[in-house]
Structures are given as structure tokens and as C-alpha cells.
């Protein structure tokens, strides 16, 4: 199952444990993480469901491309890193 890991910088604001989930797309994986930790949602996506502009996601070493739809496909063993983008400071 894909694994989602979040930047440890988030721990200052909200618990963001790694999450292993049965997901075919980035959005499905993030929704699984948000279901386990609802407060995490607002830190990763905005109220329109788009990836926050200063958050960056890597899927198996490549940047996610669909920053609004979050439709990037996952492989069964994908490793997802949700990180701070340097654009944010």
C-alpha cells in the first residue's frame, strides 16, 4: 500500500503521522490521512481542496503535477512525501 509521510515541521502545529493507505491517486491518499487526523487537512490543502501554494508533494521522487485536482496516480508501493516548498520561506 502507498505510504504518505509529512514534513516534521508540521509537528509544531498538528500531529501528522505517516499513513499507509489503499489509494490509487494522491487525493485518495491525502483523504485517508485527513480521515485519521482531520486538523491536518487545512495545513495541506486550502478550502477549495487545492494543494497549498507553499506545500510541495513528491511521489516516488517526482513532484506531483496536478496541484488542484491531486489526480496524480499512485503505484501500489508508492512513497509520498508532503513537504514545505522553499517558496514559503
Amino acid at each position: 500500500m502507498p505510504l504518505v509521510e509529512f514534513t516534521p515541521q508540521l509537528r509544531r502545529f498538528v500531529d501528522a503521522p505517516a499513513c499507509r493507505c489503499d489509494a490509487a491517486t494522491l487525493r485518495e491518499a491525502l483523504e485517508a490521512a485527513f480521515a485519521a487526523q482531520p486538523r491536518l487537512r487545512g495545513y495541506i490543502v486550502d478550502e477549495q481542496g487545492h494543494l497549498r501554494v507553499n506545500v510541495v508533494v513528491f511521489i516516488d521522487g517526482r513532484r506531483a503535477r496536478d496541484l488542484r485536482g491531486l489526480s496524480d496516480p499512485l503505484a501500489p508501493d508508492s512513497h509520498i512525501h508532503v513537504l514545505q516548498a522553499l517558496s514559503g520561506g
Partner: protein
Amino acid sequence: MTDRAWAATRKGLFELRRRRAGWEIERLSFMADPVTMLLPPDASGHMLAGLNLGHFGAKLQASADAGKTWREVAAPSFPPQPAGAEGPEWKLQQVFALERSGDAIWCGSVPGGLFVSRDGGESWQLDEVLWRDPRRAQWMGGGNPAPALHSICPHPTRPDELLIGVSCGGAWRTADGGRSWGLRATGMRADFMPPDLAGDENSQDPHLIARCRAVPEVLWCQHHCGIYRSSDNGASWVELQAQPSSFGFAVAAHPGDPDTAWFAPAIKDERRVPVDGALCVTRTRDGGRSFEALRSGLPQQHCYDLIYRHGLAVDDSGEQLLMGSTTGGLWASSDAGDRWQTISTHLPPIYAVKFG
């Protein structure tokens, strides 16, 4: 006189206490996080702080013990954006104004939204009437790419009545708790617009609007193009001339005297520093017919501090003032601005100061 005040800065929220020797920093909350606005504590100690985390978005924090401890509460948020909607994205960028009125708390945002909470800031509802007003499509950014709703002036005896200011979207009034709105910027002039639109109420750039609590028909406005005063609850505005400059961002209205207000002048327009590198506050005590420049205790050489729109405050007595700058200068006066004491010259950039 009030002995507690607050400075919301780029690197946290500073609580200030006035002691025998003057104002001192008591506490720092949210160290290293930008705090864009605060709502000072009410009698029970309830207060709010709006944060703008660099990576993770705009957040709202609440305290039940006057800032000793905090917990995150739901920030105002916009409803789903319809496909093809004009204007800025329906996404909260900043909490930019917080005011109580009766049992309600009102929040202004970037982009120019107005939210209300009727449960002490635990949940928020967008004022859909203002947000869906077709005139909002003409609003522009002012300093930010998106419009900013920065001023909320409650009416002290009519809790459902507010006058708000938007950069750039003029001044608006509701008398029914936000169910209907009307423009309230007649007399303001926008010299940054095409000439035939200079008087358009919906295009004005009021940098800040402040109300006299004792005589609520009196409002003061530091506008992008000058200083204005209204004596008829915003129905009409009269331009005033101040020296050394009528440009600036901040205004503080005396709570008891409708003829007294303070401003923090700077060079217009793209050189936003104090005139001649010398910081001053201008004060009128005659309803704007004349202004005096108050300089005692403020830096007068090579000073490039700018005062943001929420960076000047007056307390309930009308005697104490607080002023914070973009370069971390913080000054206080206990004699209505005649003399100023330096609290610090090296705080983080100061977004807002409040007594209470």
C-alpha cells in the same frame, strides 16, 4: 488608563504591560509565526489571533485566559468557488480585521470577505450578501494582489450596524447585520483611477477607517489619496489637508472627542518612508481644520520606519497611544501624542497594535 496592550508582528504576538517605568514586553506567543491581527481579550479573557503561516495557510487561534494559553479554532473559510467566478480565488489568505459588536465577532479578510461568528469565534459564516454583490467584481488589490477588507467599525449602540472599508472597494454600511449593504464613500476621490472614475465610490482606497465611539456619526479615513472625515455616519466625506503629508496608512480616532484624531504620515506615493527621514504623528483637535506634527521622542534622523494601517492605536481614555513600525520600532505616548517613549527599536515588523 489601560495597562495592557498587544503588538502583532511578523514573528509572533507580543503582550505589553504598562508599569511604573513604562511599557514592557510581558509575553511572546507564537514565536516566529506571523500574526496578522488580534482581537484583544473581553472581560472573560477571551481573545483571538489570526496567524498566516508561511507554508500552511491562514489560521485562527483562541485564548480563554487572555493569551496565556491558546488553541486552534476553525479559521473563516470561503464556500466552494463556482466555475468561472470572477475576481480573486475564494481562499482565505489573511485574517485582516477582527471586531466585536454585540454578541457577534466580525472578521475581515484578504481577499475582501467579511465573516461573522456568533459563537465566540468557534465557527464563522461568510457574509454572502456582500460577497455576492456584483459590484465586488470591480474591487482591486491595494498593496496585495487581492482586495483587503481591513476596517470594521461597529456602531456602539446599534450592534447590527457596521461601516467597513476595503482596499480597493470603498466604504460600505450595513444596518441589518449584513443582510443588506450600501456604498458609503461619497466625497472620496481616487486619483489613481481614470479621471471620470475618480469619484466612483466602489473604487476608493481607504487605507483605514476609524469611528469616534462617543459621537459615532463621526468617522475618520486615511485614504490612499488623502485624509477624510465624515460627520454624518459615512454618508459624505470631506477631504482634509495635513502637514507634512496627508499620505499614510493608519488613523486613530479619539474615543470621546469627535474633533480629535491621529495619523502617521509618509511620503506619497511610491516612496513610503517618513518625510525627510523624520518620524512624526499628526494630530488634529479641531475636526481637521488644522494638524500639528508631534515629534518629541520619535526618531528624527535617517528614520525609514513605515506605520502599517493597523499600527497606530489609542486607548479608551484617549490619552495613551501606541505606534508600531515596519522595521520593528514600537513607541508609546501617555499624553495624547505630545511625547513618545521608545519601547523597542528592534522588534519584528509590526502589523497591528491594540490596547485592551
